[in-house]
């Protein structure tokens, strides 16, 4: 283990550019109606940063950890102080179960365990048990005093279906893990900004082969003129077996569908939903 202190500041795209490959675009920013939207996209963490994050979290981060990436929406120029919602990997991972109390197991675990017990009884200890699927109910990190309260309002899909010009769009990966080739776990954030409103979707998707599919969506909607912020959180989940039955038999690209959270969202039943509101 490295004994390096955790970095006190995150590197900026500018100084990172000199030390890292230039294959990723660094992110961008836009301000519309006193809302500042920012994305930052950098390579996965290096060894030191991973050590620092492991120490903070108490669990090993996912294999592909974009710990310097962020998406944020900030209300600026407000008299009552600023307000900001940000999505980042560290906070998302902090909500992953670190006790292993509700741990999933890979499909062939039972068979493997049985085989193992025959061979080597001595090895019993599970190393650092935690939710290795990195399932999180993260809904963003908020700074500012204004708080969300439950509401019966809904995100106005009709307005969002309109083909208003998209002034700003980005898709930012926060983390991804291949679950040691037993499926996939991925948290990414998409945002689109139109002249009058914006929509952000932070989607966690997890597929554990032959076990379960899981989606957790956080949507943030902002109507600029009214300063209204709606946040919707949904959980969708179903067993692998059930979902497989729903795939149309004529589709020959099932593996590709199962890799695509956006397509999979249509195949998973809604388990829970809540909407919250805040006026800035």
């Amino acid at each position, binding site marked *: 283990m490295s004994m390096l202190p955790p970095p006190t500041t995150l590197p900026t795209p500018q100084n990172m550019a000199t030390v890292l490959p230039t294959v990723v675009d660094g992110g961008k920013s836009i301000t519309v109606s006193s809302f500042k939207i920012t994305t930052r996209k950098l390579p996965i963490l290096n060894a030191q940063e991973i050590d620092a994050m492991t120490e903070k979290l108490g669990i090993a981060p996912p294999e592909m950890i974009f710990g310097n990436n962020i998406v944020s929406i900030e209300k600026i120029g407000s008299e009552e102080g600023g307000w900001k919602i940000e999505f980042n990997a560290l906070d998302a991972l902090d909500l992953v179960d670190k006790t292993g109390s509700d741990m999933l197991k890979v499909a062939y675990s039972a068979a493997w365990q049985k085989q193992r017990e025959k061979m080597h009884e001595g090895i019993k200890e599970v190393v650092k048990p935690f939710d290795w699927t990195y399932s999180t109910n993260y809904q963003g990190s908020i700074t500012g005093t204004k708080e969300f309260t439950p509401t019966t309002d809904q995100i106005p899909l009709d307005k969002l279906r309109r083909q208003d010009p998209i002034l700003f769009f980005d898709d930012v990966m926060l983390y991804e893990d291949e679950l*040691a080739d037993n499926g996939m776990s991925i948290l990414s954030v998409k945002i689109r900004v139109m002249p009058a409103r914006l929509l952000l979707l932070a989607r966690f998707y997890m597929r554990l082969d032959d076990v379960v599919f899981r989606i957790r969506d956080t949507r943030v909607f902002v109507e600029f003129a009214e300063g209204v912020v709606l946040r919707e959180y949904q959980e969708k989940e179903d067993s692998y077996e059930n979902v497989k039955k729903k795939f149309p038999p004529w589709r020959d690209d099932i593996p590709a569908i199962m890799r695509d959270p956006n397509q999979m969202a249509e195949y998973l039943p809604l388990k829970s939903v809540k909407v919250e509101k805040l006026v800035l």
Partner: protein
Amino acid sequence: MSDLDSAVEQLRQCRPIPESQVREICFKAREILIEEANVQIVDAPVTICGDIHGQFHDLMELFRVGGDCPDTNYLFMGDFVDRGFYSLESFLLLLCLKVRYPDRITLIRGNHESRQITTVYGFYDECIRKYGSANVWRYCCDVFDYLALGALVIGAGSSVQPTRLADGEDAETKVREAEDEVEIEVIGLGGVVTRQMSRRDAGMINSTNLTPSALPHLSSSGPAGALLTGVPGTGASGNSRGIGNANTPTNTGGAVLCVHGGLSPLIDSVDKIRLLDRKQEVPHDGAMCDLLWSDPEEIDGWGLSPRGAGFLFGADIVKQFNHLNNLTLIARAHQLVMEGFKEMFDSSIVTVWSAPNYCYRCGNVAAILELGEDNSNAVLRSGGEEVLFNRENTRRLASTYMGGSMKRGGPGRRYRVFEAAAQDSRGMPSKKPMPYYFL
């Protein structure tokens, strides 16, 4: 030009070859591989490579950086396929080279060289897309079953010939004209030597300093920070040659075991790997499975993965295994490393990762590991009189940043770090996300 040479040429252009030709090459490859042992013996010098994952253009970059086959003797530690867009071309090119130059390239099996895994992670889909049927996928899978499970590199030297630095080098990367034994050399991006470590003082290196500015705390501390080199015979290493203990073999005449994943609790000697029946699909349990799947971890002894299947092994396991088998190093792949390589457990094991910008989005660099020939006639410097730089500082840095122990015994090794091939040569869709009206 023979059919084989023209197939190689065509594949080098990243163009698939006809199905009939794939069949023929797979058949020939199988005839060669069937004769190979579970643990192939490979003579140094050799260049060891980790996961490729269908990143064809980056494989070309690897050959550019490491030298072409057969000029360079290569050892690939598996995971040729899946994830990337060109698994087919990448694997077939390596296979053609194997058939063409069987003694100059060694391919060992990774956990992705399996029917089950390739149906889920891309290679199967790619074959269907490119040929319209699963035939080519089947031919390839039949070859997978014959790939060796590991390789033993013998005759590796205890030092590498230091690469001379270009004039006008940045002071921070300026390394003393290393006249004593260079154990570890790192060639960073653009072919710049970013690190040379002599045998005595280097601790565990994990390549956090690909470029000097990446490690401000090192470069700001003066020459010693960038130069973890010491003086032979001064005791700075705390361990003289020839005086070792069971945990830290100093025998540099040992071999290097190469395997995709790691060790298995069922395998306490290299000979036991030789006894396995490898010609089958990768099983879900047992020694063969472990060799392709297990990971080193900072634990004592063996542990179970929290996933409910698979083993993790600690430093003591590696050191004991190396000692019992007269190994100086285990080289493995299997895990993504941002820096391209990562040495662990006092340099008794290294992870080599050769897929830069993995999945076209991770932004990581890749590395290959060069093991030189044994030049046992090399004169050891007597040293002692030449105290360069601030040794105290060097030692402190070495132990703080490089993992502690100064005890060494590994072969001389050169890591060449490289980036993903230029974007435009990849012929892929733009990386800029396309705006759309998601809901």
